[in-house]
């Protein structure tokens, strides 16, 4: 089973949201990382066939998904970023409604809906109206609807938004459990969500795929760029304005900083192992990067002049 994005492009007037993106996905969990406006949601919408590309194609096992129509949608499970629900429906009503749209028979829909309500721990509120649900409960219901047809391709856009840490852990375990023989595309801002469960990380910036690989492989690309150092509060403030700080911890009178930088930020800084979060910050802390580039250029000029 293969899902291929072939030279996929989406343009909106003067903006290119997805820019000639090509990749082939096979069963596994793909963590899609990128800042706001990187093109993640646009890519996912094109993957689900609810947004037509300006050019390029989405192919499933070599067939154009647009021409596959309902046969392709039959393989899909999709949870959009903004999950619109029907306030007057109960959780069970809603799942039965979506199940009908997904083509499940009435009997199968009931069984499957109850199974999934249990899976997402909503069985006790199955007959409560959705409008009474918390944000996390609505999100879990959204995940349940995406799984109704046991999809081969599961597309989850910011699925953990609004979930508390316990719910996020439960969600991660759930996705790991059901991902066998499925292509799962999961976009998030919360790096730790994909760090633990994603087989492959896809990193998007300005509509392009800038990195792809296993978490350990792509973090290796910034090996030597992550530093830890101790600084007094004034120095810490200065470093914070110049560098990308991935962590800052107060330790007595001093601060312990974790800095992502191509250059050694202070004399006492020591290199440390990069994480996915460091990688994310390295690519998406735009302003700091500009400042750092300026600082580096000034320092290089100064060295040259000397």
């Amino acid at each position, binding site marked *: 089973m293969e899902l291929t994005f072939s030279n996929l492009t989406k343009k909106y007037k003067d903006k290119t949201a997805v820019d000639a993106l090509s990749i082939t996905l096979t069963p596994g969990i793909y963590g899609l990382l990128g800042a706001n406006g990187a093109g993640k949601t646009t890519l996912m*919408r094109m993957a*689900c*066939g*609810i*947004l*037509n590309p300006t050019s390029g194609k989405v192919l499933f096992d070599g067939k154009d998904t647009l021409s596959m129509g*309902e046969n392709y*949608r*039959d393989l*899909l499970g*999709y*949870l*959009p*970023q*903004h*999950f*619109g*629900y*029907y306030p*007057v*429906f109960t959780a069970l*009503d809603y799942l*039965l*409604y*979506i199940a*009908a*749209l*997904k*083509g499940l028979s*009435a009997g199968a829909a009931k069984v499957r809906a109850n199974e999934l309500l249990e899976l997402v721990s909503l069985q006790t509120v199955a007959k409560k109206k959705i409008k009474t649900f918390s944000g996390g409960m609505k999100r879990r219901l*959204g995940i349940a*609807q*995406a799984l109704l*047809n046991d999809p081969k391709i599961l597309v989850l856009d910011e699925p953990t938004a609004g979930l508390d840490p316990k719910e996020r852990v439960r969600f991660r375990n759930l996705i790991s459990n059901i991902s066998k023989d499925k292509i799962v595309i999961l976009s998030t801002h919360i790096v730790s969500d994909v760090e633990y469960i994603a087989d492959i990380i896809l990193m998007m910036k300005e509509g392009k795929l800038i990195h792809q690989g296993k978490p350990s492989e792509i973090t290796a690309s910034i090996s030597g760029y992550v530093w830890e150092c101790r600084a007094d509060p004034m120095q810490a403030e200065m470093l914070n304005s110049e560098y990308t700080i991935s962590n800052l911890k107060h330790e007595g009178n001093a601060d312990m900083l974790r800095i992502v930088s191509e250059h050694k930020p202070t004399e006492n800084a020591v290199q440390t192992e990069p994480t996915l979060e460091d990688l994310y910050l390295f690519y998406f802390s735009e302003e700091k990067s500009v400042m750092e580039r300026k600082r580096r250029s000034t320092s290089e000029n100064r060295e040259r002049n000397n």
Partner: protein
Amino acid sequence: MRIFMMELKRMSKTRATWISVAAAVALSIVLAFSTFAGEEYETVDQDGNIERITGISAIAVNKEQKAPYEGEVTVSKLQSDLEVFHNLFDQYGGNIPFDLYNKEISPRFQRLNLIASVYSNNQDIFTALEKIEPNDVQNFYAQRNQKLEETVEAKYPHNSDVKNQVMLLNSQVKTPLTYFYGLPNNSFFILNFLTFILLLICVMINAPVFSAEYQTGSDDILRSTRNGRAKLAVSKLLAALLIDLILFTVSITIFILIVDKTFGWERLVSSAQIHNPFLFLPITVGEEQALLVGAGFLTLFATACFSMFLSTKCHSSTTTLVIAIAFCLLPDILYQVIQGAGNFAGFISCILPSGGLGINNNLSYQLGNMLFIQVGQFSVWSPYLIMGAAAIEIPLFFILAIRAYCKHQVS
């Protein structure tokens, strides 16, 4: 079928739908009773004080008083009515004593009004009748035809097509005309008004059908499912139309039952020409009522389909609602602008989905207004154009809505 049932369940569960249905039912009852408000009967008591009875009580008295004058409107009856009028007028002039007026003129008023309309252009009925002799009424039905022909000629000079259409239909009007108490008066106007309000309520129910899904983002999930395109669109359209149909049927049935039961079912066999002397359509009051309901149904459904088509095109329910309501009011505005003249604006006014349901351009008025629209070489009577356009627009906008929904792209 299951998707349709689920969609129907979803739509019917919303508070907006229930409030709309309840409002429509309440309104139909209130408006039905408002048709009785104009009914009154006045008597003089022993002390000479005028006692006025209104509403349902007045209907009962009027019904009893006018019963002897019901039935066929023959020439001899018209002559006798005119003789009675002349006797009283010669004796009292314009100041006929109250009890005599009540006893002799009031029950004959509808027939005297017919005579005045056919033989005179004077708006004041007494002035008009004063100059008409009983013998003149001998040719009442021929005179009615002649005046109708003159009216057509004056309005559409040298247009033989219009004249032929009018006179052909008129030749089928059954004479002598039949009169029964309980003529529509304002009840047809109120029936049209009720249909117009129902139309607005249906537009309010239908406007969010698709656009609310776009607005909340729930459409993203729906359209990524197997049956989330054409089948879902058809189910949504049918579910909304079924709710509209139920709302329309229940409200109109309540209105008609209350009005016809109170005025008396026999009123339905009266000739429509009794209250509208130059109506050239050969129908009874009952058939006219059925025609108004049928045309109202077509117009409401055409507007419902149009508003749902708009809903597939707009990204917010409010935008859909504003545009749909503007289109509901547009035919009325255009009709007022053109003042009944047959031209392009008249054509647009008639073919818009809600044509014929406004306050001023409603079908009840159009039936009597003799408005013909020039469509190429043909002259089409406005009620035909309104109903024909609505009948075409129902499937047209239904299909266009499905197509637009399937082609919709999330933004």
